[in-house]
């Protein structure tokens, strides 16, 4: 970890988030997906596990390297791909493999050196077979081409980032595919020349566009892009419904509780009275 004095102080009580997608896509071997040469016979699927930005945006400006730790039975299981952070349109961090079993993949994220942060680990369960609570859900899992996707939306939260990293995270937003001045330069154009090259003004945060180097997410789902405000809203609604249901249940129980308490008090009094009554006699 770089000494903090080069990175400035931590920006107190501030949190910067970056959404990304971690997931796996598995495809069983078939005519359309022939088994590559040299793959053992007991392997049934080809699969890939990846870490990428929402809408395939570049994440290499905060993520330097990803280490995928696969199952120990897979030879050479410690693989990583170090990406050079040179402002190229971000390519996802991907590992392609073949295999027959499902297991937990430990994914270690190494942040860019300017972040001064230690690497963090998250886990992803590799799915080769459809999963779900019901058969319908399982059937719905299978994509048209037979792929099994297990994708998760995740948000990276940088709590109190160092000053330098904070600047990196909060500057250089450009539309995707923008070919203007490299965002890394970050210089605020003082001369006319700089202004000419400056990126267009920022869009509305909920406009649905996704720009590079931002925390924006799209408004609606598209094929292959299941994570959006739409999904979020649906999730919130579902959760709220569930909460309402729970509260109703709780209410009901509480009402019953009142009756029960009354009953219990009555019984107790009755018993006590019965116990007390014979004594004087």
């Amino acid at each position: 970890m770089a000494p903090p004095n080069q990175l400035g102080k931590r920006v107190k009580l501030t949190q910067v988030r970056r959404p990304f997608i971690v997931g796996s896509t598995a495809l069983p071997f078939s005519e359309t997906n022939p088994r590559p040469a040299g793959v053992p016979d007991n392997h049934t699927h080809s699969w890939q596990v990846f870490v990428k930005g929402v809408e395939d945006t570049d994440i290499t400006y905060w993520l330097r390297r990803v280490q995928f730790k696969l199952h120990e039975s897979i030879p050479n299981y410690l693989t990583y791909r170090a990406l050079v952070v040179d402002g190229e349109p971000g390519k996802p961090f991907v590992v392609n493999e073949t295999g027959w079993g499902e297991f937990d993949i430990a994914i270690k994220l190494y942040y860019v050196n300017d972040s001064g942060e230690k690497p963090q680990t998250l886990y992803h369960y590799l799915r080769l077979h459809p999963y779900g609570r019901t058969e319908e859900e399982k059937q719905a899992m299978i994509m048209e081409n037979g792929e099994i996707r297990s994708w998760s939306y995740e948000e990276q939260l940088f709590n109190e980032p160092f000053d330098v990293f904070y600047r990196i995270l909060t500057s250089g937003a450009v539309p995707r595919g923008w070919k203007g001045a490299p965002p890394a330069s970050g210089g605020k154009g003082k001369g006319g020349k700089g202004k000419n090259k400056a990126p267009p003004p920022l869009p509305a945060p909920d406009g649905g566009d996704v720009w590079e180097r931002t925390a924006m997410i799209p408004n609606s789902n598209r094929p292959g892009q299941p994570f959006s405000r739409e999904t979020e809203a649906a999730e919130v609604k579902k959760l709220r419904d569930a909460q309402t249901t729970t509260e109703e249940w709780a209410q009901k129980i509480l009402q019953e509780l009142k009756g029960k308490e009354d009953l219990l008090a009555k019984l107790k009094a009755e018993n006590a009275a019965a116990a007390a009554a014979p004594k004087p006699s």
Partner: protein
Amino acid sequence: MSSSDVRDVLNLSEGASGTRPNKKQRLAAPRPNLKGLAREVHNLGGDNPIAIVPEVTQFKKRRFANRKPASRWEMRSFRNSARNDSTLILKHWRRIEEKQENQGSPAEELKEENGTQEGQAPAQDEMEDSSFAKFNAQVSVPQYSDDQYAQTLTSETWTKDETDYLLDLAKAFDLRWPLIWDRYEWTPPATNGEANENGDESKAIVPLPDTQARTMEDLKARYYEVAAKMMAVQKPVQYMTQPEFALHELMAHFNPEQEKMRKNFALNAFTRSREEAREEESLLLEIKRILARSERFNEERRELYSRLDYPHAETDISSFKSSAGLQTLLGTLMNASSKKRKTLPGPEGASPSNPGPPQAPVQDSGRRESTGPSTGNREPPATGTPTVANKKGQSQTQQPPAERPKLTEKEEAIYGVTHHDRLGSGPTFRTEKINKLFSHKSNQQQLRINNTLNELDVPSKLAMPTSATTLQYEQLLGAVNSLLEARKVSDKLDGEIKIELAKKAEREKANAPPDSENSKAQEDASKENVEKGAVTTAPEAEAASKPDSPDSDDVEEDDAAKNTKATGAQKEEEEDEEEIGVESKAARPGSSGAAQKRSASVLSTASDKSSKRQKK
């Protein structure tokens, strides 16, 4: 020791031993007497005569003689071409060639040969050279003309004559330097130019110390110098072949001093004593150890330095090196820190679209803090005025320092920047918060929550963990928790109601005989017992995953019933032995004892619970 002695020791009969001497005498008589041996030596053999093999003196067998006639030799004269005196003729014996032998009878031949040899002698002498002449390899000594010497070889310490003399010696002794040095007796020609006896005398006296001073290294140095220079003269350096050039380099760089030192060192090493050798060895070891340690030490020191190394200032710090400079720096720092405390956030809404480096927020440019230590060595006086300006009507904290670009709400939304009241620093994932909500619960609680979530058809993992969904999820979990609490209380009440009902039933049953005497104390005690029993059943009911399932209820009921029955039985027994004596005898020792044991085991947990209930 004779056999008689043995017999004596073993106490054998005398008779046998008595015969012994006779036998011995008989045996001894025929013993052959070998001549030439002392009697004592004979006796050494004891009964058995010494086997003596007489040595047969034999001479070597005559070698089978060669029948051939002895080869002939002759005295032949020869000449040695390696020698300087060509007139010297020596003789040596040589075997006569076989060819000549075959020509005739040996006797005739001998004569004839002598004759021919006489005649051929001159020719043969011409022909025959010593077989050792070929070993007379001549050393090639550099040659030079007077002009060449004058051009290149002149030296302050060497005259031409002496150089000539040296080269002659070198040639004569085939560059065997010890010999050359040994024989080196240079007597320079008379300085006065006279060749008379006086001159001779002066020669003898004056130059002697000079020649003495010439060491072997001096000679060598001079010779190599001459040789190298002549080599270069004959063939310029750039045209030399590789070995020639190597030789030239070697000779041109001959260092007599080093050579001297080397010899001295060798001499010292040769003459040192055993103790000195031992001491040297130990010193060498010591120095090796010291070197190794110093290497490690250096390594550590370098590491320490790199650790202690302060980050180099990017800007020129020479202005701060004087004490006055330090004073101004201190002032600047004080100003900067006081300013930081009083910074205001920039006006919202008009901030730059692309917030850049610290110096340049557009809105702030008017009141911008012009300096901090990190922004370089600005002119210290410049900081004064902005500080004053800042002091006016600005009292805001908790905002990023002025150098940091301020973000509008829109930008914060876009870049995902949020502010919180409490934050631990470092990167985390959104899902961690939810995971923590779970992991803080016990396994059983987690199980129950998951069951409830399943009932609600909510997956335990969020599809999209954003701040909104996480918040919602937390609320949901809170609701679930309160639901679970409510269920727990309700279950407990259910249990108690059942106990009371059972008690009531028991009482009614017991009250069937009208004249039962129930002392209040006993009633209370039994009630206490019952309650404790109920409490013990409560955890069991909790352990069952579904509290409202009929199974657990049944169990509870059974337990409660048993307890009440037992205590009831105990109570009744005291009152009315006749009525249920037989039954109670069977029931008391087992069930009531068990109930008491259980109540004791849960006493600690039960006591607070029961007190709680009493409050209700």
